């Protein structure tokens, strides 16, 4: 019998092969795909996020847990897509703004957001306003997450937001982050939220666009 708390703990410890095996076993037992995703994987990853936030877990541990999450998702994803379970409101576009090639922080946000059940489309570094907007449209995303690591590139976030607001894309929530970015800057440029670190960014996504459970 599938024991979700044990599965959560295994994911927390980052034991990818075992998480994959447990996911397969849960499905073989006839458990619902959505339930396995939420109770088995997302619930485990949310403890990881919480502990990371409180410095009980560190970056390498989050990475290893994300790998375990991925291993489980590799089994569930084809079935979820088959069932048409992915929700458009749960799609996040991530990218680093034009002129800026930094992406380690953004990648961590992507991994944790996937772990929380969001569909993440990472469009990469050095992205223009047109590219961000095209990706939002193409994937019918609910959230746009932008990263910048340089004081010379952070003003471009406002260019993207202004361009987005000129489109009929009012429902899209914009979140920003990166070393020189502060809450005050986020407010000033008209972003909907600011994530100081990866776990805060994911919390923000959840506040702005709760995934219907």
């Amino acid at each position, binding site marked *: 019998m599938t024991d979700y708390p044990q599965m959560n703990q295994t994911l927390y410890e980052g034991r990818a092969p075992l998480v994959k095996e447990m996911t397969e076993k849960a499905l073989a037992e006839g458990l619902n795909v959505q339930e396995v995703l939420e109770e088995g994987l997302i619930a485990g990853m949310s403890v990881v996020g919480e502990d990371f936030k409180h410095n009980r877990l560190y*970056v390498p541990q989050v990475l290893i847990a994300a790998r375990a999450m991925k291993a489980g998702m590799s089994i569930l994803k084809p079935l979820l897509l088959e069932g048409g379970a992915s929700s458009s409101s749960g799609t996040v576009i991530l990218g680093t703004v034009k002129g800026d090639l930094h992406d380690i922080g953004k990648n961590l946000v992507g991994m944790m957001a996937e772990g929380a059940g969001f569909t993440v489309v990472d469009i990469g570094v050095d992205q223009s306003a047109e590219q961000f907007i095209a990706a939002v449209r193409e994937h019918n995303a609910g959230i746009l997450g932008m990263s910048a690591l340089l*004081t010379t590139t952070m003003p471009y976030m406002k260019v993207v937001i202004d361009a987005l607001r000129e489109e009929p894309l009012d429902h899209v929530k914009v979140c920003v982050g990166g070393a020189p970015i*502060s809450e005050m800057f986020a407010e000033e440029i008209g972003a909907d939220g600011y994530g100081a670190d990866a776990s805060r960014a994911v919390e923000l996504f959840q506040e702005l666009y709760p995934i219907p459970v």
Partner: protein
Amino acid sequence: MNNSFARAGRAFKNRDLSAFQRLAKLQTELGVDYLTLNIDGTQSMMVRPQEMLDFLPDLIPAIQEATSVPIAFDNPSVDYHRCCLEHYDRSKSGRPILNSVAASRQRIEELFELIGEYDTLAIGMASERFTPDGSAQCLSAEQVYESAKTLVEKLVTKSGRSIDQIMIDTGLAPVGADTYGLVNMGLDAMKLIRNDPSLEGVHLSVGLTNFSFGVPREIREGMENAYLTLAVASGLDFVLGNPEKNLELLAQDNRYVEVISEALECGRMLEGETQEDAGFRQADKIMELF
């Protein structure tokens, strides 16, 4: 001196020149060769470009009053560097460093001009490369090495630098979140640079604290020293680091050196896997130090 450190951040917030002078004196006493000055915004403090430009004309003479150690100006903006250099008195502290030029810099030609005009040392970020339509991240040691050669060539021809007036930063990523294999890439690139006679005399530098980002505080210093030990063996001769830490080279059988060396070996991609897989394995190994 960087706003993301508490004392420097407070000093900037209060525009407290004497606090900056105390920091400059302390770091001078600790034996630094250059004092890095970065007054960028941080996650807890917004700083507008104009605020920096308004403060620098007071700050730079104040620092120069407290120490004769030259300053390394750290910012991606041309206007920041111009302002710093205009207010820097060469007769007091010698040749400053402009940190940094990189393929992605807006107005990079002006940066090259400024380096020549003010006769500064220069740091070039070789982790980024020039492409026909702009710039991109380097994804192999060979690309970092090629980028280093391009930067040196540009700094020599456009800025009139001699090779030993140039520092190349080969890039350094957090070892625990290194899914592109950037740490190995940087170390391998250092060796390629050191093996190229046409680059003889160029200095190599990295931002050391990046390496231990995201790991428990109590092991950061040991990890940074282990990296330093490996990197110096690969040709590193400068580091942008925190002089208040006990930075030192460790013995080869030191546990940090052993674990970090093994972790970096784990981070090398095997046939049939992605660099991300190898990065996960590297992170896994690092956790042995926790």
